[in-house]
């Protein structure tokens, strides 16, 4: 019943679905890698037709991002007078960035700081809790372990922000809304993170090492922080990456929890600018919305691409060691 009920409100699967993506992204490496799978006869020739077909996918994936980059270089009037997928005569990217950062006493920078706060405490805390719990479930046996496992598996199917409206209703009773805690506390739970660490810990932390440490008289927490955490690092980085993406991109939860713009994260702030640009008696700040959007995705895309290489190699190294 509880599992059933938890699949409640919110969001188009957006950020919440991270769980599955994490799992998807991680398993190929977490599971012992298929070695060179095709022998000579099984190694087909490269196909130009396939490559062209997939290039269409790539164009589809990139067009909006290219559009964003190009249009961040235009003036307000240039946006209207020039073709969308090419540059205007005037190149004002740096002016746009400056204007975005200083608009209304630098509220954008404040939002960036808020986002970082939510990411560091929310994603960091989520990773820590998931690591401790996943490790505890993998390496210890205690009453109710199976029950915890079943409940967490059920929770994986729920988008991370699925409970936003009920959580808001409850938090407003507790007087927690409109504070950073309203964003951070719900971000602390990553059921998939726990699952991943559990799967990972079973194989990557040998029970023999733990027993040896125990013989030497080391406490369980000391053993965890000195030995196990090092063995778990690739799994932890993966969980961290996906919880960072989830909290950086979080929109629905802060939208309903916060009414004071000084606590907004970037996502909610940008949408407020967009509403301001297109509403009645609008102030046309489209160039700021576009440049702000670009500035918002750069850190997360860089982190994603940069870290992806790291954890992919980390994971395959981990699986080779076994």
């Amino acid at each position, binding site marked *: 019943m*509880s599992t059933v009920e*938890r*699949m409640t409100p919110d969001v188009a699967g957006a950020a919440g679905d991270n769980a*599955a993506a994490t799992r998807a992204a991680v398993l190929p490496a977490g599971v012992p890698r298929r070695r060179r799978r095709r022998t000579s006869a099984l190694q087909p020739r490269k196909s130009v037709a*396939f490559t062209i077909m997939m290039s269409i996918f790539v164009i589809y994936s990139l067009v909006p991002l290219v559009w964003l980059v190009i249009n961040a270089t235009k003036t307000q009037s240039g946006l209207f007078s020039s073709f969308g997928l090419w540059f205007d005569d005037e190149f004002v990217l740096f002016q746009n960035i400056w204007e975005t950062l200083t608009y209304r006493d630098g509220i954008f920078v404040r939002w960036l700081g808020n986002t970082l706060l939510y990411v560091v405490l929310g994603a960091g805390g989520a990773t820590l*809790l998931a690591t401790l719990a996943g490790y505890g479930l993998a390496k210890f046996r205690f009453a109710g372990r199976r029950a915890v496992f079943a409940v967490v598996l059920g929770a994986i199917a729920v988008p991370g922000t699925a409970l936003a*409206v009920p959580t808001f209703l409850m938090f407003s009773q507790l007087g927690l809304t409109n504070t950073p805690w309203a964003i951070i506390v719900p971000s602390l739970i990553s059921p998939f993170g726990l699952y991943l660490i559990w799967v990972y810990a079973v194989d990557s932390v040998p029970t023999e090492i733990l027993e040896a440490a125990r013989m030497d008289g080391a406490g*369980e927490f000391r053993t965890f922080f000195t030995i196990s955490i090092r063995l778990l690092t690739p799994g932890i980085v993966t969980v961290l990456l996906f919880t960072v993406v989830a909290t950086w991109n979080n929109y629905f939860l802060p939208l309903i929890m916060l009414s004071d713009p000084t606590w907004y994260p970037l996502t909610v702030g940008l949408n407020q600018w967009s509403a301001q640009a297109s509403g009645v008696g609008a102030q046309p700040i489209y160039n700021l919305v576009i440049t702000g*959007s670009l500035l918002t995705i750069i850190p997360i895309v860089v982190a*994603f691409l940069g870290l992806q290489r790291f954890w992919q190699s980390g994971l395959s190294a981990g699986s080779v060691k076994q």
Partner: protein
Amino acid sequence: MTATSATAPPGGATAPEARPIRSRARSEWKGLAFVAPFLVVFVLVFIAPVAYSIYLSLFREQLIGGNAFVGFENYLALFADPQFWEGFGRVSLFLVVQVPIMLALALVAALAIDSARLHASGFFRIVIFLPYAVPAVVAVLMWGFIYGDNFGLAANINDWLGSVVVTPFAREWILVSIGNIVTWEFVGYNMLIFYSALRVIPTDLYEAAELDGAGPMRVVTGIKLPALRGAIVIATIFSIIGSFQLFNEPNILRTLAPNIITTYFTPNMYAYNLSFAGQQYNASATVAIVMGVITAVIAYVVQLRGSRKEER
């Protein structure tokens, strides 16, 4: 462990079975100490809100007498509410059309990348997955501007054609426009789920198939698609949940097309607006619970059908 099959990861990896430490009395409380912080927060942000919503859905704020227990009256009122059903019908239509298209595209992409017939397959994998890292707000703003008739590509195309042909914000196209944004955001994510399942197929199967003289298509239908069944069930369940919970995309587009996208465009938007515009918390909680139950039932049926085929 029976519940495992529901959410078994792609590739059919089963739930981990620990080799637990032997000295039980000793590890009993230590294991719990590791798990306890997670459980405390989990109860606070997962279990408690659900319980509170159920409570709210059974009460109503009344002019006389204040907060009173009304049994299932909120539910009956909701079932008689045409605005709820309109939103529900819309997300159902969205589900039936958008999800198969998105999953088919994701499947084709995954098979192509796994086929080893692509140049630079790693590049394709990363780029197609990239939109997933883009915040929904930015994705919708980008597409919203591109759709726009002010300075979007739609405007450019219309200028070029000399007449207004492309109208993404028109009433009859808005759901397609939203479907395109959702597809853009999640096709790579589903592709990765499928691709991961393909990566764990044992090499021996391909070698055996080759010895039996099976062609590439036969390998796809005989080995790859059956191996993908679990992943397809998972992706379908996540997409069903995503469709029924549709909120971000229409809600953000609303600033650009306020007359087309109503406050009850999807059930989730309805719940949101009941809470935040109407202060009708009890009705809002009722919508949340009803949608949760419907989603869970459908996800359960999909999973049952998926696993039944597997047993055959």
